[in-house]
């Protein structure tokens, strides 16, 4: 297949740059990013290919398949890229574009709701039981008092994240064991 770069859809690459993937154009497809990637061999998240697809404007291939959400954000690709093209930054930008289109995995929604309602990414009640068990001092973080959680909610309500992460007022944790950490 002949690829004429002059005719590619530039909307995606421009948006990636705007959303944080500022150096995506530097990619020359060497593959260093994929060589250290912990998920490349076990998932559909192929970082080298993703970089190329952004430059070619193939947005439906990236956003619809949800593979960008399988990045563990280990930053190995960003660290080792000889061009400093920032592959992890590109993944973050693509996730932001994807979220704007309403495409976001359930796990992310759960993490955001947990933090929004409990002040932490894990449930608090079980934590307090465990603290008593090991004689830890009383909890003083956000989870200890509703007034701190209200502060966090007020901040999040001032951003678009409440809508993007589908935060619900009537959300409840699925159980006391929940570890929604990311």
């Amino acid at each position: 297949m002949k690829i004429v770069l002059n005719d590619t859809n530039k909307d995606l690459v421009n948006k990636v740059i705007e959303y944080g993937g500022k150096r995506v154009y530097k990619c020359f497809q060497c593959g260093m990013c994929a060589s250290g990637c912990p998920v490349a061999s076990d998932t559909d998240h192929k970082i080298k290919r993703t970089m190329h697809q952004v430059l070619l404007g193939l947005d439906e291939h990236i956003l619809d398949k949800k593979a960008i959400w399988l990045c563990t954000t280990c930053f190995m690709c960003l660290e080792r890229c000889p061009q400093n093209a920032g592959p992890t930054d590109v993944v973050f930008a693509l996730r932001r574009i994807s979220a704007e289109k309403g495409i976001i995995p359930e796990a992310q929604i759960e993490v955001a709701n947990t933090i929004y309602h409990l002040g932490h990414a894990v449930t608090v009640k079980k934590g307090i039981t465990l603290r008593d068990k090991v004689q830890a001092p009383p909890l003083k973080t956000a989870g200890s008092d509703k007034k701190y959680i209200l502060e966090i909610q007020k901040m999040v309500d001032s951003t678009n994240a409440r809508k993007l992460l589908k935060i619900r007022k009537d959300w409840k944790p699925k159980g006391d064991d929940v570890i929604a950490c990311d």
Partner: protein
Amino acid sequence: MLLPATDYALYTGCIIPLRYPDIENSIRETMSLLGANVYDMIGAGCCPPGGAFWSVEEISGLVQSARNLSIAESMNKDLMAVCNGCFCYLKSSNLLLKNDQAKREKVNIILNKIGRKYHGTISVYHLVEILHDHIGTEKIKKATKIKLDGAKAAVHYGCHLLRPSDHLMAENPEKPHKLDALVEALGMESVYYPKKLSCCGAGGGMRGNNPDVTLKILEKKLLNIKYSDPDCIVTACPFCFLQFDLGQKGLRDRGEDFCIPVFYYNQLLGLSMKLPKERIASLSETPRDGFIKKFYGVD
């Protein structure tokens, strides 16, 4: 040359205070014995890490980090992070906000609504930096009463203590040495294993998103660790700790044979200082009593 170690604002995060409070005890008690005072950050929330808020909108992650930083600022103390994820996102946010006036102003408009303000007056350190660069291994050697001669440790740094290195500047990202040096200060041998700097497989939302893949990545990591047949795994990140602890249980439930004891660094440090294991190292799904009995003689 060592930096002065005195007072720190202790940012505990989420996993340590609410799932492994024995680790929190180990940090408080060992730091106090080493002469570093830690103070609670009242009302501190989730850092937050990259998987959710940062992944949909920068400002929503940044403003939550800035709130946490502003709590340490109001205490007039540098922040001590005891989790890699917290360290990475709080330090990166601090750097970003110190250097980007437009973002600082945007963040402060939101913080103003809750009566807080970010000034950019403190630094963020990882516990490993404080132990190695501020306190120093000589002082640690002197403070310990039991030497772990003959014990072999597989050191796991975890991603967000090292990378992105241009923001974090805590270690050489391809050849880190601080946690190894701290482990050796306890008398243990830090053994080589392949792909030591690779990810444990927990972060970025992976544990929640895809339980099969998270265990697959962990299994590869553990097979590499088994190469050197260590007595335990040592880390200074509670999320990696959780992944090794609960993840090995997950693999055992699938019939796999993985049962390597896992410790947060300060738990071993505390045991070497003769602190009671009930308070500092009693919560784990992967058994550690065999190790503690063998090397510390404690039941």
